[in-house]
């Protein structure tokens, strides 16, 4: 067992998959010679050569489309978006070519699009977005967003081995801020399976990625008062773990839906609808959401702090749920 950071876990997963399977290759902007804008692929070009570590032109639509074509031809490409904000340039390739190819032709498209997303780093409107909400309503795609080094490694391996297009949202705030022990031996975290990251009995917080850590911090504070908050980390957003949600909701009876994506049309709306359809009688209070405001993500720290979820907003929502 080695202690690794979240970003190192991503590097290790890519490295191990490149060594394990010759059909895996990486492509993206500045990933070779430079080692990636965040150094995820440092040293890869020297080790695996320019055929498997492709420095591409600044063409996100081509990066994604080329990956799709190579995937149809039997490879397992992993395309890097330098920032997940730029994924929109390849939107049509993702939602119309990749997502629909198997359905309409029977051709498999085993590929991964990965890259850094998320705020709390003062990156402004084009380097801090959470674009996952645009994709979780696109049948044919899988969407994952890990919160820990263990999950980051296991989910990336599962994504690379999956026969479908998988969008893998890394959280750049977590890159070097969290570390944990990760097994040396090969493992995967199955796509579609969530995990209870902190068990509790009074309120369920359903969330993913960086918000898992914020929820746990708040839960520890509540624990001092004898209130036990359960933190459910979905890990996968499409498909998502409906069984785990129902299990937790039926035990805790109060639910906070928390995410960093903006609130209107965000993932929480879908979870809320599902819970209302399947566990309404178990609820002791109306569902609550904490999410980013309906605005572009701003640059200046006071604006960004106001825009994003924070501990105070989560605490307030939890109090309201408990006091209902």
């Amino acid at each position, binding site marked *: 067992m080695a202690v690794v950071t979240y970003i190192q876990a991503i590097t290790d997963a890519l490295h191990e998959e490149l060594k394990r399977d010759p059909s895996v290759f990486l492509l993206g902007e500045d990933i070779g010679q430079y080692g990636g804008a965040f150094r995820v692929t440092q040293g890869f070009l020297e080790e695996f050569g320019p055929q498997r570590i492709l420095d591409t032109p600044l063409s996100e639509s081509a990066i994604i489309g080329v990956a799709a074509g190579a995937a149809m*031809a039997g*490879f397992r490409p992993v395309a890097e978006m330098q920032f997940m904000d730029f994924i929109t340039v390849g939107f049509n390739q993702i939602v119309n070519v990749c997502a629909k190819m198997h359905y309409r032709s029977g051709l498999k498209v085993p590929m991964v699009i990965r890259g850094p997303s998320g705020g709390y780093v003062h990156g402004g409107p084009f380097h801090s977005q959470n674009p996952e909400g645009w994709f979780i309503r696109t049948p044919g795609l899988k969407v994952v967003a890990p919160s820990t080094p263990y999950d980051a490694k296991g989910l990336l391996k599962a994504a690379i081995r999956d026969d479908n297009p998988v969008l893998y949202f890394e959280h750049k705030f977590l890159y070097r801020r969290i570390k944990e022990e990760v097994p040396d031996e090969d493992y995967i975290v199955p796509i579609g399976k969530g995990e209870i990251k902190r068990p509790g009995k009074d309120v369920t917080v359903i969330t993913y990625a960086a918000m898992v850590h914020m929820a746990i911090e708040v839960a520890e504070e509540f624990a001092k008062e004898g209130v036990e908050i359960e933190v459910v980390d979905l890990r996968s957003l499409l498909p998502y773990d409906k069984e785990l949600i129902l299990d937790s909701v039926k035990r805790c009876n109060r639910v906070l839906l928390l995410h960093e994506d903006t609130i209107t049309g965000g993932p929480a709306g879908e979870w809320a609808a599902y819970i209302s359809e399947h566990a309404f009688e178990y609820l002791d209070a109306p569902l609550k959401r904490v999410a980013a405001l309906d605005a572009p993500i701003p640059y200046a720290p006071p604006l960004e702090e106001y825009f994003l979820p924070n501990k105070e907003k989560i605490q307030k929502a939890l109090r309201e749920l408990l006091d209902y």
Partner: protein
Amino acid sequence: MPKSSAEGGVLEAAPLKFEIEDRPYEGLKKDDYLKLLYYMKLTRAAEGRIVKLYRQGKVVGGVYLGTGMEATAAGSAYALDFNKGDVLFPLIRDLGAHFAFGQTPTVYFAQYLNRIGSPTKGKDGNIHLSDPSKRIVGMISHLAAMIPPAVGWALALKMKGSQGVVMNYIGNGGAQVGDFHEGLNFAAVQKVPFVLIIENNQYAYSTPNRLQYACERLSDRAIGYGIPGYCIDGTNVLEVYETCCRAVERARAGEGPTLIEAVSMRMRGHSEHDDHKYVPKELLEKWAKQDPIERYQAYLFGKDLLNEGSLKQLDDRINAEIEAAVESAEASPEPEPRTAAEGVYANE
């Protein structure tokens, strides 16, 4: 030989040739000359039959024809070799390419009649015909979107050390979409075995070329990517075939992609519901004089490769094939409703 912009040649406007140049075409045997005619005629006959089925209300969606463009479609794909690993990414008016690359009329009719006899099994319609077993990848409706995936398949062939080549098509409208640039530039940088054919048929739906682009020749763009570009007569099947052979050969030799602009005229509306009134009559009359099939037949008569008897035999054979294909497609059932939600994901 058509000029290459990358070689610094001066491009001429596409010549309106009424004669097909009488010279030997490399590597063509008598059988090949007749097969080219067969694929063009099969295309026109199959499309004529689909129009009848459409008017009988048997086709639920639109009908898109390649009338006037058969030489470009059939002549280009005939330059490919399935056994060498080649791959076809055709466009909306390329039925001739499907046939020349091994697709059968039965599958074409099953596709248009939304029967499970088509590899898309009713999930996608008309000319969006993919067939993995034949290495044919059907287009999506967003034009130019298939260029990057076609380049990606070509990259895969290069990485595998395969001899295969990917042939992909785009229109005079689709060439104005961003993916045209992103895809072709990527192909050029990576020197992948890729041939892109711009089928310049003068109109994109109702919009004439003068409102689509301001350059003289779309093939001139090749020089901007550092690759050879050719502008050819897209109604001359032999010129199409020969140019594509050179491009395919170049790709197989590891020398990278080629851009070919094949100039022709879309002789029908965008689809069969479109009355085509926006096209000046004189323009259609002018292009009617160089109908790709009639010109080529006259050429073959002149070369003693065809006579009245063998032409009739060919027509009879095509008609019989088409009637059998329609019958077989109509015998294929429509898909079960529950399959609408199946196959969204692979292996699930």
